């Protein structure tokens, strides 16, 4: 019996969340200390998992399985493969950075950090799930912290609208997918929610064709799939910084991950049948999202729409259903997660000091907060797919994979690179360089904690850009497993 690494990983933030709720709000220092410790543990452990050896069963490592409700075939069943391991690390990075950038939350810190820890536990739980029920359980666990955090600490103008829209959209997508999960459960006749068993169920083709879109799109709503994307910018903009980071950085990957794990891995023939639709929607995401991002005047909305655009690439990578596409999608999930978290972190730092997010009212900020500018530029370069950064190593395989199945997808979505470059460079020039407006004289530099966040996340993106093998080797293993489910060579 191996040490239950994954359970410790999931239950550390969960325990922290519960403990925090029991503390009085006066103990702000203690509350922050607990949150920081828990998130540091999560980060450390999620990184350590790369180096700890563990027996491989069915392509998964660190497997734990405990009966939950055996009458219905529900179990607590966790395990990770090369695909989910980077996502755990991503969650750890964003959780840790999120606590650091929210250090100064004055209003009800107990609730803030407790709900934040619930969210972290939720995403970690989804990424490690090998049981459909458990996956859904953790998926939905995020509902109340998401909503309450946006509503309680979000930006006053739009938080009620943005929070409700985001929560209901995601709940809607997931419960529709749940109906599909039920169909899968009863259709397989295996009386189990165990995903490893269901993979081998050999579901009939017609069944897969009917239910794939329901499940895939239901979960992909959380990845911002067109036409169900508008919650993402509205929700992410309304949310407080740490929550924007976690929602756009990690939660969107939760949607993509669930769509992959359940939609593609359990219904591979359905995926092949509907791949054209996902390619089409993904392409619209990429191009339309980029165009929308370009049209924004609000700095945070630019990032919000850029997420929609970049997640489209993940969907295209999935739907290519080949080695390159899936590998790229795996890398892109990680790369985009870190990138967007850093974007939102910097936007938050800028807003905290200037009290505006209007691009027209900002300018020359690099003079006051050079490191923030550095972080934004690194993220921007990743976003544009510049060689040497993680975005490049992620996007190139996706385009290659798309080219092999549908060249038009690669061509059309490659247009977005140009659009992305345009809006990123525009924003960088207007916000961080040029004249400083009168209203913004003598701003303070960002705090050391913020600098730590910027440096950490930037370095991760550069490291992955220069040494993609750090995570791509593992992802390749995961991809090979999926390709086997898809029926060998494709």
């Amino acid at each position, binding site marked *: 019996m191996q040490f239950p690494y994954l359970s410790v990983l999931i239950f550390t933030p969960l325990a922290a969340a519960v403990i925090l709720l029991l503390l009085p709000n006066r103990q702000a220092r203690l509350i922050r200390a607990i949150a920081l410790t828990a998130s540091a543990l999560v980060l450390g452990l999620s990184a350590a998992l790369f180096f700890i050896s563990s027996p491989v069963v069915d392509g998964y490592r660190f497997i734990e399985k405990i009966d939950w409700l055996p009458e219905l075939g529900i179990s607590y069943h966790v395990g990770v493969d090369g695909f989910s391991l980077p996502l755990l690390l991503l969650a750890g990075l964003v959780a840790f950075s999120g606590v650091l950038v929210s250090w100064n939350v004055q209003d009800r810190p107990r609730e803030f950090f407790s709900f934040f820890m619930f969210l972290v536990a939720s995403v970690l739980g989804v990424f490690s799930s090998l049981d459909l029920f458990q996956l859904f359980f953790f998926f939905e666990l995020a509902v109340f912290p998401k909503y309450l955090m946006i509503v309680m600490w979000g930006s006053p103008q739009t938080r009620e609208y943005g929070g409700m829209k985001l929560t209901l959209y995601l709940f809607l997508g997931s419960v*529709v997918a749940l109906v599909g999960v039920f169909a899968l459960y009863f259709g397989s006749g295996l009386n189990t929610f165990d995903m490893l068993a269901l993979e081998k169920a050999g579901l009939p083709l017609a069944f897969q064709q009917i239910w794939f879109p329901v499940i895939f799109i239901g979960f992909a709503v959380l990845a911002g799939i067109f036409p169900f994307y508008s919650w993402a910018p509205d929700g992410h903009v309304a949310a407080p910084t740490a929550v924007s980071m976690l929602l756009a950085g990690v939660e969107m990957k939760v949607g993509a991950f669930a769509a992959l794990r359940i939609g593609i891995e359990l219904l591979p023939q359905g995926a092949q049948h509907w791949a054209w639709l996902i390619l089409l929607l993904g392409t619209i995401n990429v191009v339309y999202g980029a165009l929308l991002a370009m049209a924004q005047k609000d700095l945070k909305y630019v990032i919000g729409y850029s997420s929609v655009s970049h997640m489209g690439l993940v969907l295209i990578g999935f739907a290519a259903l080949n080695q390159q596409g899936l590998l790229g999608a795996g890398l892109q999930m990680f790369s985009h997660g870190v990138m967007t978290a850093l974007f939102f972190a910097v936007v938050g730092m800028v807003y905290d000091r200037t009290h505006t997010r209007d691009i027209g009212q900002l300018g020359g900020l690099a003079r006051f907060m050079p490191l923030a500018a550095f972080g934004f530029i690194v993220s921007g370069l990743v976003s544009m797919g510049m060689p040497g950064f993680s975005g490049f190593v992620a996007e190139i395989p996706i385009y290659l994979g798309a080219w092999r199945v549908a060249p038009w997808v690669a061509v059309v979505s490659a247009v977005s690179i140009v659009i992305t470059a345009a809006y990123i460079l525009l924003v960088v020039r207007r916000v961080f360089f040029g004249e400083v407006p009168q209203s913004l004289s003598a701003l303070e530099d960002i705090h050391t904690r913020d600098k730590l966040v910027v440096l950490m996340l930037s370095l991760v993106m550069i490291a992955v850009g220069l040494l993609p093998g750090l995570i791509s080797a593992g992802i390749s293993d995961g991809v090979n497993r999926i390709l086997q489910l898809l029926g060998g060579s494709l």
Partner: protein
Amino acid sequence: MTGSFPAAMLLKSLPEISLVILAGLVLLLSLVWKKRPPQALTWITIAGLMLCLLLALLFALPVKGPYLIWGGLLKIDVLSFLFRMIFLTGAALTVLISVERQPSQGQGEYLALLITSVFGMCLMAASADILMLYLAIEITAMPLFILAAFQFRQKKSAEAGLKYFLYGAMTSTVMVFGFSLLFGISGQTGYSAIAAALEPDRLPVSLTAGIFMLVLVGFLFKVSAAPFHFWAPDVYEGAPTPIAGFLSTASKAAGFAALLRILQEVFRASPELRFGLLAAAAVASMLIGNFLALRQKNLKRLLAYSSIAQAGYILVGAAVGTPLGASGAIYYLIAYLVTNLAAFGAVAVVSSNTGSDQIAAFSGLNRRNAALALVLGAALLSLGGVPVFAGFFGKFLVFASAVQAGAVWLAVIGVLNAVVGLYYYLNLLKVMYLDPVPEGSGPLTVVFPWKAALLVCAAGILVLGFIYRPWYHWADLAAQMLLLH
């Protein structure tokens, strides 16, 4: 399997017998024991209810197959056992929540009436005879009519009692008409004899359908499902808050227990009919409940509409009628008991402190009493069907059962309704967590019995939300035994 000798039968119905004794004792004490401490009767009642629970566990545990006792009037099986637990627990929690509400001069009557109605509910869940069922329904309802009007000096409470009474009288008359037809056709009152007379080769299905509809009227009233839900909002709003909680949980559970049994044991020959009618009622209840809840300004009214919607979800399980559906409905009812009592308990606390049960009275609750906000929040999320709270698994089971039975459309309507429901529950969370504290409102005092009740409910909401096995085991056993035929 008729009970062989009276002693065994007495033992099997010991909990019911003790309930009657308890009611008499409480009434007597309230008359003769003038110098009692103010809450003495409350604690005696709770101790008595717990004793009944213990007696049921000790002597009436249905270890082997169903027993028919008292000449086939009552059936002791897992279903009746499980629901007896539900009613007793619900009643004990209601008594705790009622503490401050009891006008001192009426305390004895209040408690005795409550106990009597629990007695009726236990009989309802066990009835295996239409005559017994009718008696049980009336024994349950009569005390509740009075309890709903207990604050009769307030117009709304008197109105609630009268409305509840008129509605109840009308629907039970229709049901009794159905019963008389059943008796006329079979010449019997026992479930199994009637079921034999309803076999399709002996009676045209259209006639069975007509009778089924008449009988269903009474049940839909009891569980506050559409189209016989109209009483619920006014009665919940006007009745004393703990009684509203009791009506929405234990009384609803009793209706469902009897419904599940009569569906299986009397109308089992026509599953399509059952599915058609109940699914229609389920859809109507979900839609009406959820959409009308959206516009409510009063929390008790909102909870009334939400309770109509919840009846709709539970009806999905009853309509499907498979073991999974029935056990899902039962699990749902257990979860719903602690969930809704927590919600009504929190309303009782706030309204006794502020004198208002408008939603506005709850704004900023998180800043005034974080623990209370947490409990109410958990209850609302449980009603919304979000993990890690009890209601999640109830919904999971009933929707799963619909898909299993091939009624994907019903599951889809169900989950879409859950989204609508989540909208107004989240809005309430927003009121509690975001909205400013009303001016001039002091801290909320929560007396010990309330704390105890809310703590038990909150623990129940959590435990039922992620530890499924023991509860599902019992619900499943009840369903299996019910469907054994």
